């Protein structure tokens, strides 16, 4: 079930404003459809859908400031999914304390990589995003002569 997460729209972005919803609950969406406009400290950007499905629930209301990156902002149900899945989606475990790592995740990879026992892909992503943001501190896309 695809949760729509607050995206990081630049490597240094940590939070943003959900300035506008361009879909409402019950709308069907296809890949590439614009779901929302997000305002960062630098610009207003669009969030596009990656899946096709029905917008089941908007979790963050329009005009909300300081929405942290990777916070679920909406739920889109793809074909064959039911609204019951919703409950799981709404309770997002806190990253560090998540004790009940999925069985298949707890021992994923080799012992050589002990630092990656985060509970789920989503949590992993968040942890990673934090650490990588620290690493990239100060860098910004689009500014380098490389491009």
């Amino acid at each position, binding site marked *: 079930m695809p949760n729509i*997460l607050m*995206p*990081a*729209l*630049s*490597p240094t972005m940590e939070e943003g404003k959900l300035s506008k919803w361009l879909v409402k609950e019950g709308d069907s969406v296809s*890949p*590439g459809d614009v779901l929302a406009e997000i305002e960062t400290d*630098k*610009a*207003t*950007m*669009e*969030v*596009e859908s*990656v899946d096709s499905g029905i917008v089941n629930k908007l979790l963050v209301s329009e005009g909300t400031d300081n929405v942290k*990156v*990777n916070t679920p902002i909406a739920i889109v149900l793809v074909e064959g999914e039911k609204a019951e899945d919703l409950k799981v989606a709404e309770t997002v475990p806190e990253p560090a304390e998540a004790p009940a790592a999925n069985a298949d995740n707890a021992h*994923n*990879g*080799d012992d*050589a*990589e002990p630092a*990656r026992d985060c509970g789920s*892909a989503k949590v*992993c*992503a*968040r942890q*990673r*995003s*934090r650490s*990588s*943001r620290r*690493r*990239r501190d100060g*860098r*910004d*896309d*689009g500014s*380098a002569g*490389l*491009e």
Partner: protein
Amino acid sequence: MARKAVATNAKTQSNTPQFTKEQELAAYQEMLLIRRFEEKAGQMYGMGLIGGFCHLYIGQEAVVTGVTMASKKGEDAQITGYRDHGHMLVMGLEPRGVMAELTGRAGGLSGGKGGSMHMFSLEHKFYGGNGIVGAQVSLGTGLAFANKYRGDDTVSITYFGDGAANQGQVYESFNMAKLWNLPVVYVIENNKYAMGTSVERSSATTDFSQRGQSFDIPGEQVDGMDVRLVHDAAERAIAHARAGKGPYILEMLTYRYRGHSMSDPAKYRTKDEVTKYRQERDPIEQVKARIIEEKHATEEELKEIETKIRAIVTEAADFATNDPEPDASELWTDITIGA
């Protein structure tokens, strides 16, 4: 010059080259894989899984697909700039290896040390993935020199954008390529904007197909949103180069739907312009409509293809999320050629 006339005719649709059923379906699958892969990459960037640079190919899929279909895959060399994920997928590099490189994991094609712009495969004759604007034009010309030197009857296909087309080394390359009649096809992917600067604002002359004129290099302008026209023109250009007649320029008129890079809100163009391309010119929708109309496949069968492609992309994304980062000791490898 005569070639120019052909291209103009093609645009009137009177002489549009047709695809067989197999070609239509192959093009559909290749382009859809790029589209879905890139959408996923965009999403993963938003989750903080991809660091650094990331330039998506969404909208331009027909260019690399049509050209590659006209080439000898695995024999002819290809090289491009930093908008390179689509080129790698079409050339047969593993989607999971590409995605894992984007996330900087050990299972990435460059061991997680290259990132979006730096992947290569000698096996597939793909030479990158280059971050310096225009540098691939000199390198691609060098690849053609090597092809000719070895006499192996292969061609170098060198892609660059409308921005790179104004770089000095492009014209030094053109000169040598024609001087020695090197087997190189220059594919200019003109997506109308060099980062945020429109072609009109950045270029003294905007018909890039004629940029080889003073070197006597023929060129044609092609509708880069129609994979059949891309393929047709590429066949002509590649045959020219392979026959020892020297370089050839193809200017592909194309469009990228997303910003230049992930943090570009693309405010330098109107929403209408983007919407118009998406709705009226989309390369994938064009093929899909023809497949349905010609009854090459049913809606259901196309849905099956889509499901299959989504599974490939999901698998790639899962791998790229869970594969470990390279070991710290890898810092010291791949710097010089070892024993």
